[in-house]
């Protein structure tokens, strides 16, 4: 809330702008009291806030309605929308399931799992345009926003978006930027395990429970330990691994398949032929899911006219993924260490994230705690439901008046200092944390430092985020410099105050008591601070992209699925698919909606017979 430089107040409704005074349009470095007044929305502008789970593989949106969180279905009637963006041959942008289905047939024109690159400068080319990861996320968010507006029947301008608890500063900023580009005001970023905990905890607000949320999603792994007492949901510790998820389990299988067949396929690396890679990936993912229910599975890969088989059973899979399962233990251990090894134990273990459906993962969790985890809520949906609860809390909904949620910051934040070793030598690059990890946020801590050399004229603080004792292993966020009076070393004191707000925005304040000088810094990412004009420009650019209309979503998805299956199978099956596809296309031309719907259903059923149930 302190970072109003560069922001302009955005009003929820365009028509209101003319009526408001000019001062509300210009950025004001306002005092907190005035800010509150500006933000306090008059009752008639009380729009619904939606909660969005922006996941690596799938996204979902939910809203708080009638005293409970409700999932919003997309244009295909499903509660989960794949986080995939693709470009058609004529340049139309596809989002969601239609894009996901085209991953195998058009791998260069489809992008998935871009959440893993949020916060980086990576550029992804689709068709004639290049996109940053936050642009792609913005497209997905826009789709979800449209779904919500269709469901609620009113415009939606504000959202609560979930991020992995272990996302660092840059990644959070990128998520927020994605929201802004999609036309959503994102005033609250919620940590995914907290959201899952809220969804579970809503039913046991009385009494005291301590539970651990084990969130293994498509790309990230988060562990949080929470306590609920008297309606207060308090996060005690938050750890995780940003590079561990369901996709890694897929990769292990992909490596195994390529290990077996790469010679026949004549490829040196698995990414050499993108189409082949995506095909194998798809098969591996299906196999992995099938293994949840079956003891063994056979993958069929049709490539260049030949059929290749790969058999897999539970034991083999277990051996292949041994290392990944072992990696699951360390963040949990660290979280337990952070809360202190006491005799009070964890009461419950909550699973979130689709990858926790794997029996291997459940087995590992059971072994870790000696008790079965609670998994009665759908792990794919639980985070979105929690986000909806948080949205409801934000809307000050009457039924949630008694609930308060407090969160912690998962990383330590500090500066680099130099220390004198016992033998007199001086070593720089030592990390001095100012806000330790698992401090309840919002938090404000300060530490005093002294100058190092004689006649030093300025002190420069480099700000880092991380846990390592040496700053070179931590993430550099920014720097701030303050002039000091030149005096003997160790004589001038400089105070550094870190203020970490509830959304993870860090403000740094340095102050020299002797000269009463102060400097402030708000940590922004490496790219330019969120400049309104540039933001608006990019937003219109994205808006002007030709996106397929919603009502044709279902048909496109069906067509894409059919063409994918056509490519995948051979012989009789392929002929069959070709026939049903041609039939569907004929019906489409007739433009009779009811006939189209029933033909589409029939097509899906037939495809289900051949390839098994579709999944997201």
């Amino acid at each position: 809330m302190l970072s109003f430089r560069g922001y302009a107040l955005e009003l929820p409704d365009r028509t209101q702008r003319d009526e408001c005074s000019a001062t509300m349009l210009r950025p004001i470095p306002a005092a907190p009291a005035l800010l509150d007044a500006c933000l306090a929305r008059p009752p008639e502008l009380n729009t619904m806030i939606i909660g969005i789970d922006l996941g690596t593989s799938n996204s979902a949106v939910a809203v708080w309605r009638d005293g409970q969180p409700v999932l919003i279905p997309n244009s295909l009637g499903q509660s989960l929308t794949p986080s995939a963006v693709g470009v058609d041959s004529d340049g139309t942008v596809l989002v969601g399931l239609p894009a996901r289905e085209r991953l195998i047939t058009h791998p260069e024109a489809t992008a998935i799992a871009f959440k893993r690159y949020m916060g980086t400068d990576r550029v992804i080319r689709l068709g004639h345009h290049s996109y940053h990861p936050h642009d792609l996320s913005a497209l997905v968010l826009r789709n979800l926003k449209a779904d919500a507006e269709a469901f609620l029947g009113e415009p939606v301008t504000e959202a609560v978006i979930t991020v992995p608890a272990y996302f660092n500063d840059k990644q959070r900023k990128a998520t927020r930027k994605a929201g802004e580009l999609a036309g959503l005001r994102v005033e609250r970023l919620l940590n995914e395990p907290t959201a899952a905990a809220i969804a579970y905890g809503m039913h046991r607000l009385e009494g005291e429970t301590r539970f651990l949320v084990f969130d293994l999603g498509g790309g990230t792994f988060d562990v949080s330990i929470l306590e609920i007492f008297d309606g207060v949901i308090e996060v005690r510790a938050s750890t995780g691994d940003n590079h561990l998820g369901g996709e890694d389990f897929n990769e292990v299988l992909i490596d195994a398949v390529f290990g077996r067949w790469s010679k026949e396929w004549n490829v040196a690396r698995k990414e050499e032929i993108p189409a082949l890679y995506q095909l194998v990936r798809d098969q591996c993912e299906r196999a992995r899911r099938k293994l949840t229910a079956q003891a063994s599975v056979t993958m069929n890969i049709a490539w260049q006219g030949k059929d290749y088989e790969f058999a897999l059973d539970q034991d083999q899979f277990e051996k292949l993924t041994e290392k990944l399962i072992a990696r699951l233990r360390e963040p949990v251990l660290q979280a337990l260490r952070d809360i202190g090894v006491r005799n009070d134990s964890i009461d419950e273990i909550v699973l979130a994230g689709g990858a926790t459906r794997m029996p291997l993962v459940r087995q590992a969790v059971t072994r870790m705690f000696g008790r079965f985890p609670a998994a009665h809520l759908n792990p794919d949906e639980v985070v979105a439901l929690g986000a909806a609860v948080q949205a409801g809390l934000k809307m000050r909904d009457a039924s949630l008046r008694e609930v308060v949620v407090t969160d912690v910051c998962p990383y330590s934040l500090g500066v680099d200092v130099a220390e004198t070793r016992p033998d007199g030598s001086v070593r720089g690059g030592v990390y001095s944390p100012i806000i330790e990890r698992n401090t309840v946020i919002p938090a404000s801590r300060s530490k005093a430092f002294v100058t190092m050399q004689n006649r030093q004229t300025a002190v420069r603080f480099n700000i880092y985020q991380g846990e390592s004792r040496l700053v070179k292993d931590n993430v550099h966020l920014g720097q701030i410099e303050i002039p000091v009076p030149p005096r003997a070393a160790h004589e001038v004191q400089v105070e550094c105050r870190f203020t970490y707000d509830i959304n993870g925005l860090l403000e740094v304040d340095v102050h020299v008591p002797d000269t009463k000088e102060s400097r402030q810094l708000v940590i922004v990412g490496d790219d330019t601070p969120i400049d309104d004009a540039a933001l608006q420009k990019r937003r219109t650019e994205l808006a002007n992209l030709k996106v397929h209309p919603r009502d044709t979503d279902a048909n496109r998805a069906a067509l894409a699925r059919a063409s994918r299956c056509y490519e995948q199978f051979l012989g009789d099956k392929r002929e069959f698919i070709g026939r049903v596809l041609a039939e569907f296309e004929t019906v489409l031309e007739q433009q009779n909606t009811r006939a189209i719907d029933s033909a589409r259903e029939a097509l899906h059923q037939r495809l289900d017979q051949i390839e098994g149930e579709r999944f997201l």
Partner: protein
Amino acid sequence: MTCVSMWSVLGIEPTNDRTSIRRAYSRKLKTTNPEDDAEGFKQLREAYELALRAADSISVPDEPETMPAPALEPPPLEPIPSALDVPEPPESQPESHLTDTPQAPVEESTFESAYRRFRYALLDPSTAAAELTGLFDTVRTDPALHNLQIQLQFEQSIAALLLECTPQSHDLICRASELFDWPGQSERVGASPAIVEAAGLARHLLYLRQLREGRHELAAAYRALTSPPNPYALRLRILLTQLDVKVRELMRTLPFEYAKANGLDEAAMQWWTQYNSKPRLTQPVAFAVCFIPTAVATISGAILHQPAAATTVVTLIALLAMIGMAAFKLFALDRLRQRALERWEGDFPLRAATGWFPVGVGVALINGLLNDDSSAAWLLACCSMACLLWCWVMRPYGRPILLRLTRNTLYLNIPMAVVLLLLFTQQATPLALTLTALTASQIVGERQIVEWWLDQISSRVRERSLTALLMLSLFTIAALIFGGNDDNASGLLASTCIALALMQRMTCVSLSDDQLTSRYYILWFSMFAVPAGLSYLGIKSSPTLLTGLWLLMGASATLFMALRNEIKERGLEASRA
């Protein structure tokens, strides 16, 4: 926040009941929402945390289990949480690994009994190391440790236990540190103190082990330092093997690294104190061994020719040189700081100018010598002495630099001067060649030999050693041939020089604790020195013997070449192990 105000912020009376503190906090939290009122919330949270801490200090602290020292009671470990009260498991739950143990916590699990056995064994000083390791492994691989909470408690208690039972737990500490990644944990801020201490101790122990068994330069320095026959040999070895820098580095870090683990390396500390305490006594010896060949060569040459007038001139020049040196020391050297010296080192023209000063004179001397003029001989003698004196004077600026100075001046510059002179005057007389050969071999050979040795122990293979050996042999052969064929003076000179060079080599052999080095030197002797000496005698007698000796030399050269590869292999193997 003062003591009083925290209770007023919470709105309750001072108490040490955690539940009521918590209830007060949650009550206040409803009105001070962190979303709306960040400042108010921060205050409330601070008050809450302070109140909890105050309550904790009054009541019994909730510390993690630590082992009391010689208590015989096993630590009360948490029994494995039973799987009794769980919600309905989903259909596809596989078999869990839990035993169906029920309500009776009295029954000890395998884990607890294994731990107890291990603990008794550790506390008993007479237990064998192998048995300890075996028991430790049994405890470590127990399936009960899958449970994270048990693993955490175990880690903490094992760290504390091992720290108490030093020194017999030293090996186990290293192993445990590796297994549980204690260094990684202690790297993070906020790690537990027992684990940080154990990780630190493990690091020290591993470092010591590397020093004792390793093959790199620091390890060689450590071994040189801790196993010499006597202090003089110690210094010689360190000087000759260019390990001086490494030893200093080692000694700089050693006290710091082992401050905590005192008593671990008293022997090393003792030798280091001895090494440091007597600088003046052994330095001349080092100088003598390194620099006597040239000095003796010149002095002997000078002694053989003694015209009186030239002596005066020479003495005068020598005196002037010495005065100049003293003046230099008084006025210039004191202002010279280490950095200036280092600049001298790095600045070739400067080095050449100051190094060549005595040498320029030496050139004239040699010219005189060649022309059988004694004044030149005297001058050369005085210049060498002056050089030695100058190097002595530079002594305070550090032994390594000193060595380098003397080396450069005497070994490098003089032979270069000689070679140039020869080129210009086209007079390849035996004495000149002998001098050239010997000094060149000194530089090239010794340097290369030492480098080769260091190469072996650091497992880098350099092909230059072959070239060095060839050059070495060529020069020595040339020296021998020409030295042997000449009249008594140069012959005596040559043999003196050779004898001294051999003496130097022998010292190297006796001082090295390396089988590798001794083997190398012995082979070097057999290849060059013995045939050399024999040829000197043989040349006096008959050409047949000479030819025979040549053949012998050739044979031993081949043998050496053949064995050299084997030595290299062995050396590489040893350093890889």
